């Protein structure tokens, strides 16, 4: 039996633009199981990117998540119920992003900051989420060096550094304990809806936002011109981690790469760096938003292979967005088809290709040219609808060859037709 790690439940996201409200997500429900690669497929503008951005809660203004739930089942044994992250604080999300959920994007070259070195950008992930580990390792290294020192000044300088690192570590540990307590309590209060609990939840969220991560003295020292050099040790630690990470991703010459800048790398290499940034902290879920769409086919194949290998070793689950059905067939286990903010059909990849139920899926599969095909290429007539005033009822009805009266009036409910295969179409209502 597969365990669910992520579940969105009737997610509605709107964009408040100058021309009107764009109803980008119309009740999107997606489930990702542990260990699988889930492919989210659809045309441009159907809402795939908005969905994953909503999951990460980094929807761009003027967008807002207006309704629904996003439930994560990340932490293991003691937690059987999920966490609705829409109810959590921003600080909570910040600690999740890049740590438990990571995302890689389409255009690698613009995804990297041109004025910061590769080493810095990859290293940032370690600084944000693994600082305690880095600090501990650094303390160990410097302590080892300390044993071998003879000179008085150097000895004391090293002692000072260790003291500072220890302080920072202590503060960090206190912080972690604090937020763990808060998180545990929030988890216990997850389901309750009475006013008192809601108020307490809000207060806890606020407190989580305000908890102190940094030690004042350390921050002060970090800014003093000569003293701040003490950080070079932890920079070394982070750097070595970055180098080994790059090595494991097959980046040649990683020592040199760490000191270079994004514009000096090729497209495929840049994408590897983006993947490195995403994987630095071993996320539970990797979201890939069309990572290969802008690369030429050979590089595309490399990246796809890379993701496949990584999935076996490091990542547990992948949410892969693409418009390329061939890619879906190659790497995904299950897939969901989206159209204009709706999820039309969800099934295992085998099922989708052999038994597509939703008219849109059928149209999609029909339009893929096949090797033996001699007749005209088939298309789905019409164009993607305007989401400010979308079609009523089922959003696909203007283009659907099987559209009925009810399709114009009512949005079709999602029905599970067979094990793991669900459709949102009036053709498959329960009465039939």
């Amino acid at each position, binding site marked *: 039996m597969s365990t669910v790690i992520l579940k969105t439940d009737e997610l509605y996201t709107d964009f408040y633009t*100058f021309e009107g409200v764009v109803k980008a997500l119309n009740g999107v429900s997606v489930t990702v199981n542990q260990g699988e690669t889930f492919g989210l497929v659809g045309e441009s503008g159907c809402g795939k990117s908005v969905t994953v951005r909503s999951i990460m809660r980094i929807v761009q203004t*003027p967008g807002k998540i207006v309704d629904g739930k996003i439930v994560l089942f990340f932490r293991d044994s003691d937690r059987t119920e999920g966490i609705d992250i829409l109810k959590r604080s921003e600080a909570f999300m910040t600690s999740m992003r890049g740590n438990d959920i990571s995302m890689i994007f389409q255009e690698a070259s613009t995804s990297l900051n041109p004025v910061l070195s590769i080493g810095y950008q990859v290293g940032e992930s370690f600084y944000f989420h693994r600082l305690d580990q880095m600090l501990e390792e650094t303390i160990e290294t410097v302590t080892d060096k300390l044993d071998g020192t003879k000179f008085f000044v150097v000895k004391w300088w090293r002692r000072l550094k260790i003291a500072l690192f220890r302080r920072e570590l202590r503060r960090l540990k206190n912080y972690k304990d604090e937020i763990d307590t808060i998180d545990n309590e929030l988890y216990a209060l997850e389901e309750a809806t009475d006013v008192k609990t809601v108020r307490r939840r809000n207060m806890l969220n606020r407190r989580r936002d305000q908890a102190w991560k940094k030690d004042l003295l350390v921050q002060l020292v970090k800014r003093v011109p000569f003293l701040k050099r003490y950080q070079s040790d932890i920079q070394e630690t982070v750097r070595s981690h970055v180098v080994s990470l790059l090595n494991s991703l097959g980046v040649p010459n990683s020592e040199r790469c760490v000191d270079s800048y994004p514009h000096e790398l090729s497209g495929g290499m840049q994408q590897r760096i983006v993947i490195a940034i995403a994987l630095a902290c071993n996320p539970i879920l990797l979201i890939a938003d069309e990572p290969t769409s802008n690369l030429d086919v050979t590089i595309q194949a490399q990246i796809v292979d890379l993701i496949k290998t990584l999935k076996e070793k490091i990542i547990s689950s992948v949410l892969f967005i693409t418009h390329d059905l061939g890619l879906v067939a190659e790497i995904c286990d299950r897939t969901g088809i989206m159209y204009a903010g709706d999820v039309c059909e969800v099934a295992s990849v085998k099922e989708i290709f052999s038994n597509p139920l939703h008219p849109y899926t059928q149209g999609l599969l029909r339009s893929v040219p096949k090797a033996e095909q001699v007749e005209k290429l088939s298309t789905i*007539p019409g164009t993607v*609808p*305007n989401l400010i005033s979308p079609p009523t009822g089922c959003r696909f009805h*203007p283009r659907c060859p099987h559209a009925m009266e009810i399709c114009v009036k009512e949005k079709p409910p999602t029905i599970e037709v067979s094990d793991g295969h669900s459709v949102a179409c009036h053709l498959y209502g329960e009465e039939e």
Partner: protein
Amino acid sequence: MHSTDSPVDGSTIGQSASEAQGETKHPGLREFLFSMKRLLKNPLTIIGLVIILFFVFLAIFAPVLAPPPQPHDPYLMPHDGWKIQPSPPSAESPLGTLPSQYDILYGVIWGTRNAFRIGLFVVAANLAVGIILGSLAGYFGGIADEIIMRITDIFYAIPMLVMAMALVVAFGRGLQSIIIVLIILGWPTYTRVIRSEILIVRDMDYIHASRASGSSHLRILAKHILPNSIFSVIIVASMNLGTTVLTAAALSFLGLGADTGYADWGQMVSTCRNWIVGPADNRLAYWYVVFIPGFVIALFVLGWNLLGDAIRDVFDPKLRRR
């Protein structure tokens, strides 16, 4: 309603409800109306427009609002007597007078005409030169580009006001000189803007397509390139008008412009230098001399800057769709 088997009628496919009801405007017109709406929604635009219209009104109706005492040269400000000490605002002089009793209100009204004269002349001339040279440099490139760019570099090397002062010394004082000097010093800005716009557009595919179908250079320039480049220039021109008037006023203030008693804002400001501090019991006694002419200048320039800013907010493609 639709039958279950036949494909849906193609003409209504893909359109939302309102569009299907038949309201497709010509895209150019729609964009224009969109721009106008955006422009007018911005409160700053309205303020800028109001300010400019106010000054236009003053300029056009100057003879009516402030009848010149000497019709052959309306720019000579009237003065009621020769007393050096400025008179505070009163019934005869609603805004007070400058030293030697020149009426401030009169100076402000007729000074508007001067301001517009300077601004429009300089900007128009600079636009013309800038478009010609900028097109030469940007479109044809090569040696023409190099030469023109080096010359603009040289002009840019010296701060505008300082160079203007030097040139006015060479040409002699007076508003005419100032206009000529500002034209001479102003064209590099426009040339550069047009050139960079052209450089962006020049290599776009639709230009290549146009060449491939046989259009002459001039036609391409006129029909394709310039209309697309024009927006940046309009923005620059609008803000440049403000700065031109500022520089001209500064030159007049320094005494390089019109003579005393001439209705020029900058000149009016320069007269106040001895009257900054009033008598011990009323130190701000001559505030109107210090404050009013300069305020009018600031208001005028502000109006143009607001307008230019608003136009840029609307037409800059990056900021267009929010």
